[in-house]
């Protein structure tokens, strides 16, 4: 059964709409909302570009669809049929594109299309019970294939970002350290040069001085 529904813009992770009274009867709804937000942030950085994916988290699963730069995400129980969840998201997607498709890019404030929550609410009710005739027939509909949708774990997904961050951090550290190394090397080079030629130069200088002094005196 559907627990959470969120719609966000992929380009910057801006939330566009969210189901009404989502998170009811859930102890740790906030935790999952945080995860969803982190997920959106990851998406906005251009990772996980797979347009359909399921991500497991605790006793629940996030399913999401990315279409037309908008990410439609829902959180369901693990037992809830994947097929239904994606059909639910497709329903939302069709309606959302029809209603707001041309305004998505220009939305400037969070939850700009919060009015969509009434539709989410209504649609959610249709999918609430998996045993209604309507849903069973949908489940049996072979035309809709969801097998190839990848399932991953949320830690993994969110972790990818972290690991990438780490790598980029390390590489940037490497860059700066190598720059320091180059500086130091140049410095040492100069010192070596000085060490090598300084005595000669001094001797020469003394000799010239002597010559000059002799000339002056005599």
């Amino acid at each position, binding site marked *: 059964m559907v627990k959470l529904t969120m719609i966000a813009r992929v380009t*910057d992770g*801006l*939330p566009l*709409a*969210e189901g*009404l*009274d989502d998170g*009811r009867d859930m102890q740790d709804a906030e935790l999952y909302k945080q995860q969803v937000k982190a997920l959106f942030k990851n998406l906005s950085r251009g990772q996980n570009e797979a347009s359909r994916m399921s991500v497991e988290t605790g006793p629940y699963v996030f399913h999401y669809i990315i279409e037309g730069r908008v990410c439609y995400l829902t959180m369901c129980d693990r037992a809830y049929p994947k097929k239904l969840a994606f059909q639910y998201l497709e329903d939302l997607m069709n309606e959302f594109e029809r209603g707001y498709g041309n305004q998505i890019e220009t939305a*400037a*404030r*969070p*939850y700009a299309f*919060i*009015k969509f*929550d*009434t539709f989410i*609410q*209504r649609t959610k*009710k249709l999918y609430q019970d998996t045993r209604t005739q309507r849903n069973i027939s949908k489940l049996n509909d072979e035309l809709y294939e969801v097998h190839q949708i990848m399932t991953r774990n949320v830690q993994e997904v969110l972790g990818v970002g972290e690991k990438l961050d780490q790598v980029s951090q390390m590489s940037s550290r490497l860059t700066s350290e190598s720059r320091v190394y180059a500086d130091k090397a140049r410095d040492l080079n100069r010192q070596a040069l000085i060490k090598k030629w300084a005595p000669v130069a001094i001797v020469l200088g003394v000799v010239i001085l002597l010559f000059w002094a002799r000339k002056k005196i005599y």
Partner: protein
Amino acid sequence: MGTENPNRANNLQGPSATPFAAPRANMPISSSHPMVGSQTSAFRPTSVPAMPNASPFSSPGPTAGSGTPGFRPMQPGRATPSYGPPTTGPPQRVPAPQFSSTSQPTPSQTSHVGQPILPPSMRPPPPSYVPSVPMGSPPQSLYNAPSSNNPPRSFVDSPYSASGPNIQPPPSSTRPTYPGYPGMQSNQVNPPPPPPPVYNQGGYAPSQPPMPAPFSSHQGGYGQVPPVAPSSGMYGGGSAPPTGVMSGLAEDFCSLSLGSAPGSFDGGLDAKALPRPLDGDVEPSSFAGMYPMNCDSRYLRLTTSAIPNSQSLVSRWQLPLGAVVCPLAETPEGEEVPVVNFATMGIVRCRRCRTYVNPYVTFTDGGRKWRCNICALLNDVQNDYFAHLDATGKRVDLDQHPELTKGSVEFVAPAEYMVRPPMPPLYFFMIDVSISAVKSGMLEVMAQTIKSCLDNLPGSPRTQIGFITFDSTIHFYNMKSSLTQPQMMVVSDLDDVFVPLPDDLLVNLSESRPVVEAFLDSLPSMFQDNVNVESAFGPALKAAFMVMSQLGGKLLIFQSTLPSLGVGRLKLRGDDLRVYGTDKEHTLRIPEDPFYKQMAADFTKFQVAVNIYAFSDKYTDIASLGTLAKYTGGQVYHYPSFHSTIHKDRLRHELARDLTRETAWEAVMRIRCGKGVRFTSYHGNFMLRSTDLIALPAVDCDKAYAMQFALEETLLTTQIVYFQVALLYTASCGERRIRVHTAAASVVTDLGEMYRQADTGAVVSLLSRLAIEKSLSYKLEDARNAVQLKIVKALKEYRKLYSVQHRVGGRMIYPESLKYLPLYGLSICKSTALRGGYADAQLDERCAAGFTMMALPVKKMLKLLYPSLLRVDEYLVKAPTVDDEFDRVCRRLPLAAESLDSRGIYILDDGFRIVVWFGRMLSPDLARNLVEEDSATDFARNQTRRTTSGRVLSTLKFS
């Protein structure tokens, strides 16, 4: 100048510039004081109006005028230096020398010039008036000038005009203009009878304590008004004192004769002379005048827009020091608050104190940094927000940024300001359907009203709605959109209330509209025959809480009996006469059962605002029920002995307004102020979430909040104090916004200035809130006394400022800005919430009025305290032609018995109800035309009758 005597010149000019007061005979002259010229505006605030010294001026001032050569030299010095003395400069207005032209100039006077007779040490710089001396002209010219009746010019007066002849005449036309002339010795001798024109002495050295001065002239106040301080504007308007001595006091303050004035026959006071606020509330002009970028005074009003700079001033000010904030006040057409969207940039705020960017921040460093006006921290300007500065240090793109030019703006809140998606507007009704509710007709009126408002509920199509009814059981209604009729579910287990249905008790209005309408249509008939007298209020409240806690919203409770079942049951109290007047009296006005306060706290936490509509003819313990509204930012509506035929229109109007006015949801408000000032207490209907965060589940334009502030340090070093009110809320359309109001007020060192810039409306609003709060822990009498004492002390303090210099014995003096204060003070004491004792107002009415007054904005509060009274019979007889004629024909009358004529019809309007008063001798024709035949005769007997409706009103198109 050529003629000047060098020595003299030195003398005079010695200390940066010597002001001369050459005024009248009794004017002290002090010269040799550095304070010259202080007319400049800059000084105004610092001026201490007190009269300086005790040094009577033995020789008449005109000396200066005598045209002695020595004198003249001053001019040049004077003109410029006058600005010089920084803070000490007294803004004086210079009295015009008033000498009759006929008087002989006595050259002898010259000796006095410049040298004050008084010991300079005691004397603060005297008024710097220099009689005008035409420059460079031989003495004769001096004389000529007077004869021609030229107004004397004072150097001070026109510091800018260098040459004598150009000097402007003193502005006040009332003053006789005498050529500045010596020869006034005679004046000394003369008894004062020709009342000395009053001079307002604006300024003195601030530090100077007022000393008794023997002269009556008050120097100062006319002439160029410094732009900063609207001084002259505020004077005037006072009633002119009858006695000669007083003539002219109006320049500086108003006075009122309370005892018999000497020389007049009538003892006591003249009722007609009492100031009455017949024009309604007058907003102080100084607030916006001084700082044009301040937010409008409808949003924020300070009790005085001159902030005292020291603790001692605060304590001498006596009145509460604070602000009244109405964050969502209704704006007139075309003046909407501009909306600013920073989009991805994030809202620009100070890093340290979190102040929002406002018109008073200053950009420096080529536009790369901005300095916070509240905490003075230098912040970096983000790249997206950067703009170059022009030559004057202003941003070049100023016109594209309303947040930098307007005192009130709304920011679109980014996602960080949301803990959840914006909630939809939600209205939940909890309706008492016991026998009394049915019998009084309340149920029917209410159902009709709600139905008629369904179209206008804000926030469509997201609006949610739901209902619960209760008597001894609780009834839930399933309003699922697929149903045609609502399904009723009855829960009778009051000890363990549960919600019978997870969804569909709260439905989307646009989807379930037919079901909701069907419910409202059938509601009155459903309980038509209900004979249940019990009321399970507490359990029903808990049920409502369970249904609403998910989303929050507005809970409207319609209650017509005393809660009698389950948790939160209340018992009769307040019928014991003996409690009144004892220390236990106040307990009747506070909730008895902690259940209500606890529930209120829970409601606030889940963003539920509770509005109580109480209808009972018997005691319902509004004190307890109202607690729910008090802590959730709600409101209490009380209709004692509701009967649908009488109160129908009022209920309809108030309920419709409650449902349809623009409402802000799940809001929090915080007010910030500059360093050195701190908000100490908050008064109104809300819950404080932390020390200074006001939690408001719902706010609308009819709610205002008052707060008091105190100085944190003994001395304020800044010149200006800034205030910023920020309200973070969800608009009904689902946008999350931050409304920010910014205002600045200058810091003064002068008590008189504080009084001059006081705002009666704000003071009254704050005083009444304090009094009502006091009545919750003390006797009513104590609360009333506290109000009176405050006003008396304030007026006494004000009197101390001036009484020494004017003979005001037996007269009350008060600043123009506070002229209505005593009257409003009396109105507070006579208001329903505070008046009398046991018999004067029912306990419920008293408590309800108290809750109402705690929430009212300033204007409505003043109207409630001093309702408008109009005589309408003349208007009715004249057969109205044009609508706007009404305003012309019907003027507000003073609320005094003399205003009522037994042959007239009057309308009294206090903003909540309209009382139509039919005079006993009203012409029968008129009465018959207005009301039915039979009742017309009744009016002869019942001369007073209350009604809220009727043809009268519709005829008048009375709003």
